[in-house]
């Protein structure tokens, strides 16, 4: 259970991380008001994940925390790679057309 929660929190954290650099990842830029929230979430989610994972056993918890971070990174990277993209990494609009 703690693995799932930690993984989910890390996915949220790394998604925020990507969204805070929209040009680099070809994402639509977040509204100016959203940026502090994204910053906060990026900071808070790993702390929450650490609390959840180290609740019963510190050593195993830290291992789970680190490994779910890595795994979540892969999940987010694949999501960004295969998901819809609005802006190219060079900053130009490249809205994908889905062909039948």
């Amino acid at each position, binding site marked *: 259970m703690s*693995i799932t929660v930690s993984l989910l929190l890390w996915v949220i954290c*790394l998604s925020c*991380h*990507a969204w805070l*650099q929209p040009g*680099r*990842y070809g994402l639509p830029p977040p509204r100016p008001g959203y940026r502090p929230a994204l910053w906060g979430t990026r900071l808070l989610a790993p702390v929450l994940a650490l609390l959840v994972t180290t609740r019963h*056993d510190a*050593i*195993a918890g830290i*291992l*789970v925390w*680190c*490994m*779910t*971070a*890595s*795994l979540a*990174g*892969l999940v*987010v*990277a*694949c999501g*960004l*790679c295969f998901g819809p993209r609005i802006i190219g*990494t060079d900053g130009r609009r490249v809205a994908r057309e889905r062909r039948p």
Partner: protein
Amino acid sequence: MMRQTEREGPRETLRTRMGWLHGWVGFLCGLCLACIFATGTLTVFDTELTRWMQPEINVNTYVAPTDTALREAARIVRSQQAQGISAFLNLPSHRFPVLQVLHYNGHEFTGDILDPRSGALIQARETAGGKFFYDFHYTLRSADIGGVRIVNILGVGLLVAVVSGIVIHLRALLPDLVMLRLSVPPLRSWLDGHLLAGVLFLPFMIMCAYTGVLVHADRLFPAQSAAAHHHGGPGHHGHGHGQPPPDAAALLPVPPLGPLLAQARENMQGRDCGFILFAADRITISASDAAGPYMSRDHVDFSLPDGRLLATTLNQGRVATTMQLVRGLHYARFAPPGLRWLYFISGMAGTAVITTGLVVFLMKRRRKSGHLVAFRLAEGVTISVTAGLPLSMLVYLWANRLLPPALPGRDMWEIDLFFTAWGLCLLHGMGRALTRHAASGWREQLGGIGVLGCGLPLLDILTAPGAWGACPSLHAAVGGVSLLAGSVALYAARRVGRVA
């Protein structure tokens, strides 16, 4: 402006030099490290693999061994010791719920399997099982200290490659944390893949390399004797091969083990017992490796034949505790199933970091050096490491199911088939690379993985239907992983085919 150029000059020089170091150390060590990492990844589930490879074992849930079973096991241990075999007793655990009378055969611990309820001998097929990958992982199957030393030196090489890689990629380390682009030129995509897995799994790779080197740090020095190799390793339980067997006449009878196990557990702060060593005049009950992240060799000694408590040894102290944690983290025997899967996935990713690095190294040099024989040989070896090794692993598993269960020496047959398949892959890869058909070499070996990987679950169902019914999760997991590996390989083979 001038100041910035001055500042960037040395930084760029450092990056260039580190790039050279990362490339060459990474490639030369990486060819072996990929094999070490891949086999280490399978070692995370070595016990489960051994269970999969012995479908005759019909005990699937943990039960504490009965007095009858323990008495029978002690009798077998003593009779083997009388024949000069250094046997010991491995107690049932949740991962492998049977009693085992084991001895070290120079590579793995092997021996008789007993039902923990009745003490009856289970006639399971002879196999090295997952322990073969464990042995390969840290000795390269060398059977002496040389292999351990090579693995340790390569571990240091991995640390060098990792640190130089961090220096090269330092600026983009955090911003590019989740960057993967597949729609860019192939070299850039491969580099993205290498960087993505490399950065994300950096903590795991450093932890594995560092703890792995530290566990066998003493083996780096040439004065270390082969005897120490067999006695010192955590997996060797300090009773290994080469130890003079006790004189048969001096072997004292063993009292009932049940009460001694209960007392040993109490003296070891409630930790489970892992194995029992039988000397001529005493027995030693050691704590289980699965008892916690601190992998100690805490034990309780009892005298024979009366079973009187002699001593309780608890290895405490800062250095001892640190080393216990280092071992515990590397061996991961304490890990519950979920964490074990995370170790497995991280190990796969670590292997992917190394193999993508090998591919990137070759791609970068193909235009300039592609015509050189040395380049083609390097490409052939890379094919046999990246695709040939998984293919050979699958051949090992197929051999386990296809060789007759009663074949004498079938464990060696399985291992010989593994190495034969790998040797053929090496010849095939080199042949294809030397004749400028490297893409075909990749495609054919990946296709082989696809066929064997996707076919393994079917073969398992056909050859061991009873085992599927008795322990479906184990067989589904092995089948699922092999099916996934086969599917990925087939997809990759298609992609290579398109590029070619």
